[in-house]
């Protein structure tokens, strides 16, 4: 009876509890109306700066009513999944996650947070949209972070970030001419990497800097707050505006180095900044630049295109070739004149008047001939005239004068003396009459005519007298005048020869420079031709090449500007593609069907601390303490071994 009553009471109590508990524990099975799936992918980097483990913190916000079961397919094999804030189970079956969510009555939605850990074997095959690699250097040498603890020196941390999502995509847009253009270009999913709040204890670090290089590496922002220097970078990996691959650099002098775990956040987003949009102005400027290069290209033209620079240069080159050819002819003719004036090979010493050439057969030039002539005059004519005058003077002396008398006739006495002696000897005889009438007048005429023949004057002839200009003295004077004239001719010819210039044995003009300029006509022509052939024509060829390059450059610049203009015109399409990609980058693991997702990535560097050592020392301290306690802290045994009589 008592037993029955007890069972009845328990049954009543159970029923009563059931009525209370049932509304709480039993909830209708519902369907989710809307699911928001926010993923935070946490990657822990190892000593080599590579990913060692990946956890995904999922926040599911489920709209609807009652208990719902959400199926979420994972792209990767998971080693575990755990509901963080409730007891609702998260189960994994063949990479499928089943998550139970309870939406409390009266609430519009319920939240489920679960943490999934990827199987480590999967990590190697995972292509992260943004690759992160962190390298540590101490005093210029690469070092693993685990070996940095407690060390001192110049610390450098380089963080490489690379957007790996680039894919060729066909973009369609309308250009400035209103034409629809299709172009294939590499479009990335835009990611912004945030390295924020990297903290460095000022007691351990000094001279902290985060330098940047334009187009490669952004500069970090340093904030010193209460003994801690915080360094932050924002790295947009959004081609084409920003490079897909960049890096950050941190440098500091470290002492007894310890570093916290740094966080590197990555989110897919098209960054919106307060930057003033100068796109229209730039586009207009590029258009003008294009026109400018177009005019340059037209001005440069081609060698066969009239009224262009290349055509003019080509004509100039042809003209210079003609000038050079003309100079060659002029030089040859002047050389002939030069050889006509003076034959450099002619040797006057061996000149043979009969053959008209020297021993080598070289004929004299004009100047050579003048030289020969003057030489003849000076060396033959003038001495001959002097000798003739001497002979005539001797003859005049031999004839003597009417006053010569009284000397005994001999070889040295004059004819007059001898005739006067003879006349005295035959005085009074017919012979005296012959002497007086015939011989003496003749002697007088001979003496007079000899003097006239020598010096000029009136010649006595049988028929009377006559002027005689062709005296030996007159000839001598004429020869002297001729010699002087030949000398002047020779000087003139010498000046002409010098003006034309010396010619070497090969017939080439000898180099003569006066005050830095060519000193002869032939050398000047040679110099001019060398300048034309050796400098002007090659210069013009170079000018042509350079002009051609300007033309090519202008064409290339036009193409580049056209491509740039097209890029500008395609900016809208690119931005749309980026936004599409960003909106599609909404999950890492995968999301429930129909869910709206967002994803963010956090990479955590390993902590550099002396905790490991501290733990070792701590363990040592524990052991020592236990040894001390064993040694002197144990209760004396005699206390527990009192005699039986005392215990009673």
């Amino acid at each position: 009876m008592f037993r029955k009553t007890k069972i009845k009471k328990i049954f009543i109590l159970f029923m009563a509890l059931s009525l209370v508990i049932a509304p709480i524990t039993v909830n209708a099975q519902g369907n989710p109306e809307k699911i928001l799936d926010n993923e935070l992918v946490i990657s822990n980097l190892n000593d080599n700066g590579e990913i060692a483990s990946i956890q995904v913190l999922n926040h599911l916000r489920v709209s609807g009513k009652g208990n719902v079961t959400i199926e979420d397919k994972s792209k990767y094999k998971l080693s575990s999944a755990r509901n963080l804030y409730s007891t609702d189970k998260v189960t994994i079956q063949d990479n499928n996650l089943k998550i139970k969510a309870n939406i409390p009555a009266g609430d519009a939605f319920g939240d489920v947070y679960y943490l999934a850990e990827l199987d480590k074997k999967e990590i190697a095959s995972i292509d992260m949209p943004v690759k992160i690699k962190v390298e540590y250097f101490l005093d210029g040498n690469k070092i693993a972070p685990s070996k940095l603890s407690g060390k001192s020196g110049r610390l450098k941390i380089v963080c490489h970030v690379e957007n790996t999502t680039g894919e060729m995509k066909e973009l369609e847009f309308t250009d400035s001419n209103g034409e629809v253009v299709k172009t294939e270009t590499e479009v990335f999913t835009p990611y912004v990497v945030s390295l924020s709040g990297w903290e460095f204890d000022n007691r351990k670090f000094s001279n902290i800097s985060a330098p940047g290089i334009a187009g490669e590496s952004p500069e970090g922002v340093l904030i010193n707050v209460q003994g801690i220097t915080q360094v932050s970078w924002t790295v947009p990996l959004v081609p084409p505006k920003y490079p897909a691959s960049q890096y950050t650099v941190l440098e500091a002098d470290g002492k007894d180095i310890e570093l916290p775990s740094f966080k590197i956040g990555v989110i897919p987003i098209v960054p919106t900044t307060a930057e003033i949009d100068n796109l229209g102005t730039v586009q207009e400027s590029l258009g003008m630049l294009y026109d400018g290069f177009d005019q340059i290209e037209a001005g440069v033209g081609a060698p066969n295109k009239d009224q262009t620079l290349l055509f003019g240069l080509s004509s100039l080159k042809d003209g210079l070739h003609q000038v050079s050819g003309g100079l060659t002819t002029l030089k040859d003719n002047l050389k002939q004149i030069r050889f006509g004036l003076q034959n450099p090979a002619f040797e006057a010493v061996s000149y043979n008047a009969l053959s008209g050439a020297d021993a080598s057969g070289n004929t004299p030039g004009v100047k050579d001939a003048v030289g020969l002539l003057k030489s003849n005059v000076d060396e033959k004519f003038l001495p001959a005239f002097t000798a003739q005058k001497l002979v005539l003077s001797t003859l005049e002396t031999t004839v003597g004068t009417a006053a010569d008398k009284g000397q005994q006739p001999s070889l040295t006495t004059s004819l007059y003396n001898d005739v006067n002696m003879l006349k005295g000897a035959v005085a009074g005889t017919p012979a005296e009459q012959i002497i007086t009438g015939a011989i003496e007048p003749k002697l007088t005429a001979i003496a007079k005519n000899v003097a006239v023949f020598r010096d000029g004057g009136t010649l006595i002839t049988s028929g009377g007298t006559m002027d005689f200009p062709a005296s030996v003295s007159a000839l001598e004077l004429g020869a002297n005048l001729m010699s002087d004239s030949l000398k002047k001719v020779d000087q003139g010819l010498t000046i002409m020869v010098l003006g034309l210039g010396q010619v070497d044995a090969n017939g080439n003009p000898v180099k003569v420079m006066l005050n830095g300029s060519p000193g002869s006509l032939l050398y000047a022509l040679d110099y001019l031709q060398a300048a034309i052939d050796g400098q002007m024509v090659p210069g013009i060829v170079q000018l042509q090449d350079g002009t051609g390059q300007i033309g090519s450059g202008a064409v290339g610049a036009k193409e580049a500007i056209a491509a740039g203009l097209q890029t500008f015109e395609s900016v809208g399409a690119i931005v749309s593609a980026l936004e599409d990609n960003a909106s599609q980058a909404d999950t890492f693991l995968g999301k429930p069907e129909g869910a709206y997702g967002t994803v963010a990535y956090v990479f955590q560097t390993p902590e550099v601390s002396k905790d490991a050592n501290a733990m070792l020392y701590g363990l040592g301290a524990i052991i020592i303490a236990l040894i001390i306690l064993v040694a002197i802290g144990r209760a004396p045994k005699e206390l527990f071994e009192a005699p039986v009589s005392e215990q009673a």
Partner: protein
Amino acid sequence: MKRAIGLGLIVAIFFAIFVLFQGVIGATAFYLAAITMAMFAVIGPFGDYFKTGVSLLIGVAMGLVGVIILATKMPLPPDHLIYLAIVSAVSLFLLILLSVTGMRIDAMFLGWAGYFAAVFATYTSNPSALGDIALSAAIGVSVSLLVGLVLSLLVIKIAMAVNQ
């Protein structure tokens, strides 16, 4: 009196050295040593300090296991009080059970409480960080407690020497 002053100075210097080097041995909860000293100096000259030390370590270990279970198997804060209560209750129940083996219940509780004092703030604010600090905190707390125990033993020895 001179001996008491001398030995007291030794204990004080030991404690000061311990505080100075608490960072090196990871005993950031160094103040626990003073609590241990306060609690166990009363054991007296014939108390079993070694067993007390082992009891302290058991308490710390129980706390460590409890925190690990809380952090890895139970829902995390803020809606965690029921689970915290369950784990705490089970832990203390197990400690009481263990006390029947001769372990000191007060020392085990102090070990458990010391460990929770060291990590509970982290557990509530950043449970994921427990993975890094749970074990090192257990060692640090153990060091502090044992150092305090050793010092309390020294204090007793001093007292005995002075009384003699």
